């Protein structure tokens, strides 16, 4: 193989052609007499239609004693209605080639369907039945509750879910719903019953605050007429509760380290961060660009340092989880156990660097060009278009939020990125680790990141050299469990689908 013929390639890089003009698809909005908002997006050639009804009750609206009720209520919507039991319902939707799915996240509940356009009307009939006439059968609710409890057991063994859970429980004060996973934890989940689920569901059951969004090739389909027929008689008489304010206070004062000891772990799951920001902020676009540079792009500072230079991890990233109230900011990586401490050093150094020094012009350009350029790719098919509009509804944002996104990103300056990075704090951050503390404990102490708490078993703690363990660091005695999939894939992610680099 020594005399391989020489390959001729072209050294000169191609220059881009002329971009085809792109606008986010036009949204036709109407409102029913009962106040239900209808958004219709006609997307020629897209024959798989997507529809979503957004109700404005999220897990963040639950009383503390009912954590998990909203996520479970969403799951129970398809378990029985006035006209159908669960099996009849799933069979009816399968005959249409449709799957009706309902889920809830922190900020909203949504009931959605993807179906060929020719069968949209019967699919929306099922969706309306599920949304407006659920019966919460006791036996099915019991089963779903037990499945969630078992899922929490499983989560304890999964280092990723455990790190996310402990991180949330560490950075928020006891009064914040964000301290728990949106699906709730054992002490409240085990008390959930049909009445509590119904109450959680009814908090969102106000047509004047709800939105139906339908996108796809709707040629010849009278979506407004169908909506009027199916949802026109939905009255506010169903009752609805107003949304109170959401507590999202930080429990982190001085920096400290919390370790969940997992003997034999070959990697350490690292989370570094603190309470972040809500979705509705003035510097949203600068924050998006900053996030891409720090931990969003493949060549972000964190991924470049920890993966491409050091080989510590398969991937490192960071970002703000923007919710109605201040969601968490976290830098994250899973690193091989031996490099746990050097990886933390690198992560902290990068967080400090972006806080304190302006980014390069080239970095700014790369991030802006990516966010602007990838926008049309994200909205190729109806599902993401509908999801983005659902996100606007959840956060009370106007339609032009999407059309102005690209110009706003283009306008972000180096100064604005530096200002946005000021939301990151490294001296008031929690460092949460799930890994083999015996392997890196001594090195961790020597590194001096701050007081160290090591949890070796459920609730049991070893305290490191420091004794300044704040009272909000009580053990997670019920054991951490990750957010359920439904909870994670709910509206919280759709809101910013276009806005978070992957």
């Amino acid at each position, binding site marked *: 193989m020594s005399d391989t013929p020489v390959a001729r*390639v*072209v050294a000169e890089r191609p220059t881009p052609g002329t971009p085809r003009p792109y606008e986010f698809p036009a949204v036709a909005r109407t409102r029913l007499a009962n106040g239900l908002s209808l958004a219709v997006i006609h997307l020629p050639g897209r024959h798989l239609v997507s529809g979503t009804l957004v109700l404005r009750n999220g897990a963040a609206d639950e009383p503390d004693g009912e954590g998990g009720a909203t996520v479970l209520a969403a799951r129970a919507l398809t378990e029985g209605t006035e006209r159908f039991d669960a*099996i009849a319902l799933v069979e009816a939707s399968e005959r249409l080639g449709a799957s009706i799915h309902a889920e809830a996240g922190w900020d909203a509940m949504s009931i959605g369907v993807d179906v060929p356009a020719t069968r949209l009307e019967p699919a929306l009939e099922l969706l309306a039945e599920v949304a407006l006439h659920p019966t919460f059968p006791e036996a099915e609710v019991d089963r779903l509750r037990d499945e969630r409890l078992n899922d929490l057991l499983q989560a304890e063994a999964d280092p990723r879910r455990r790190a996310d859970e402990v991180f949330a429980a560490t950075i928020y004060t006891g009064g914040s719903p964000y301290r728990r996973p949106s699906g709730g934890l054992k002490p409240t989940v085990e008390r959930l019953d049909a009445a509590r689920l119904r109450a959680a569901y009814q908090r969102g059951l106000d047509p004047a605050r709800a939105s139906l969004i339908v996108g796809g090739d709707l040629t010849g389909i009278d979506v407004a007429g169908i909506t009027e027929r199916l949802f026109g008689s939905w009255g506010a008489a169903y009752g609805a509760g107003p949304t109170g304010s959401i507590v999202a206070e930080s429990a982190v004062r001085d920096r400290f380290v919390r370790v969940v000891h997992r003997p034999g772990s070959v990697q350490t799951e690292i989370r570094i961060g603190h309470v972040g920001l809500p979705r509705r902020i003035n510097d949203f676009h600068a924050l998006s660009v900053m996030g891409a540079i720090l931990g969003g792009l493949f060549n972000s500072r964190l991924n470049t340092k920890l993966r*491409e230079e050091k080989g510590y991890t398969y991937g490192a990233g960071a970002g703000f989880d923007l919710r109605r109230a201040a969601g968490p900011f976290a830098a994250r990586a899973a690193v091989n156990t031996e490099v746990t401490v050097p990886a933390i050093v690198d992560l902290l150094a990068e967080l400090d660097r972006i806080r304190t020094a302006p980014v390069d012009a080239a970095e700014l350009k790369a991030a802006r060009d990516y966010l602007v350029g990838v926008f049309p790719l994200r909205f190729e098919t109806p599902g993401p278009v509908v999801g983005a509009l659902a996100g606007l509804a959840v956060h009370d944002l106007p339609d032009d939020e999407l059309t102005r996104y690209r110009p706003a990103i283009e306008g972000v300056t180096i100064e604005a990125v530096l200002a946005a990075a000021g939301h990151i704090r490294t001296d008031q951050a929690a460092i949460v680790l799930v890994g083999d503390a015996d392997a890196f404990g001594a090195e961790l102490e020597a590194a001096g990141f701050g007081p160290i708490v090591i949890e070796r078993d459920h609730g049991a703690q070893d305290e490191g050299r420091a004794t300044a363990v704040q009272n909000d660091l009580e053990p997670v005695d019920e054991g951490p469990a990750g957010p359920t999939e439904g909870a994670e894939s709910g509206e919280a992610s759709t809101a910013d689908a276009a806005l978070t680099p992957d």
Partner: protein
Amino acid sequence: MPSLPTVSFTDERLANGLRLIIAVDRLAPVAAVNLWYDVGSKHEVEGKTGFAHLFEHVMFQGSRNVGKAEHMALVQGAGGTMNGSTWLDRTNYYETLPSHQAELALWLEADRMGTLLDALNQENLDNQREVVKNEKRWSYDNRPYGSWYEKMQGHLFPADHPYHHVTIGSMADLDAASIDDVSAFFRTYYAPNNAVLSVVGDVDPDDIRRWTERYFGGIPANPDIPHLGDLSVPALLGGEVRETVYDKVPLPRVYVGFRAPKFGDDRLDALDIAAQVLAGGKGSRLHRRLVRDERIAQDVALVALGFVGGASICVGWATLRPGVAVDQVEATLHEELDRLAREPISDDELARARALIETEELGGLSRVEERADRLSMYATLFDDPDLINRMLPRYLSVTAEQIRDVAAATFRADNRVVLTYLPELPPADTAALRTDEDATSPDAAGADDAAEDEEVAA
């Protein structure tokens, strides 16, 4: 019934053997570029497992005119996305971009196909070796039930078969990979006559042809690409294999696995539908019986994974509810598979399965990235890209009798592997949990991922 739009495409070859497939779609201002190389982990030899995938990572470390990780910088800077993946039968690389940037992806792919070795050095290889080892830890070693897939594939194929080992490979083999290995692998398999390039989207075919010729035309073919020998295996395993695994898991899990007809065989189409009927969603038989009615399982899954060499596999699992006997769950699982092998499914069940598959196809084919990948796949594996238009009709023509027949041929005790994962417990406690001499178990999230190909970026 909506009819699927036909994918119209052209299919041609450059003089050096590169196959070029173009499908125009003007709906959105996007273009997908997808390059399949006919090389996968099945081409690895003993002592070199995991190499095809490690090599895929090296392909992002630069070439003559592209710096380390610059591939990502250029594609993302153009507003695009990209990745690569490795699986038993293939390695692929793909970019999706705003359509006016399509030429960039062709240039990037050509530069590394032609000149990867110009940029190869020990530092980059060592770096990506560590990244891949962390990928293995993250995806398998540090996950509950994370070892199940490697065990399953190992049991389903004999030790001397190239499907015996999994794509991620072993830590020892990854440690042993050298610069010489990378060079030899590149010279052997990364040639235009061993690749299929598909471009789908808002593009002018004449532009694509001109650019492809300009960038790829000067890369020489390799006339001596070695062919794998006969990969055939007996259709049946020839006996039941059982293993019990103690792991850091809270709930026991029973995995089952079977040898199945090769990818491309229409009996595998029928088995795909069988898997849909058994475990495809809340209306499926296993979910209904184990999860909903008897409430002995927390979750269930079953899926056929198509391979072209020798045999495919069909694998699934049930996670036990606390306090339920492993025996009971395993027996119920087998009972439902046996029932499918005895009685034809009802017309309604078949109609529902067909409707769901149709929607799934409609969804998958609506994205240019997926269409490009399927064109490359069917061309690489079957020399027949038009299968993109014929697979759905094939699925829709499967009959209840064909489903029963393939279930009867596949779901047999002498063709199955049973892995039982049990929680690690002190010996006294463990004895109480065990209901027979064999027991093992795996993970819900990890199981999905483990059955996926290996990608360069998470």
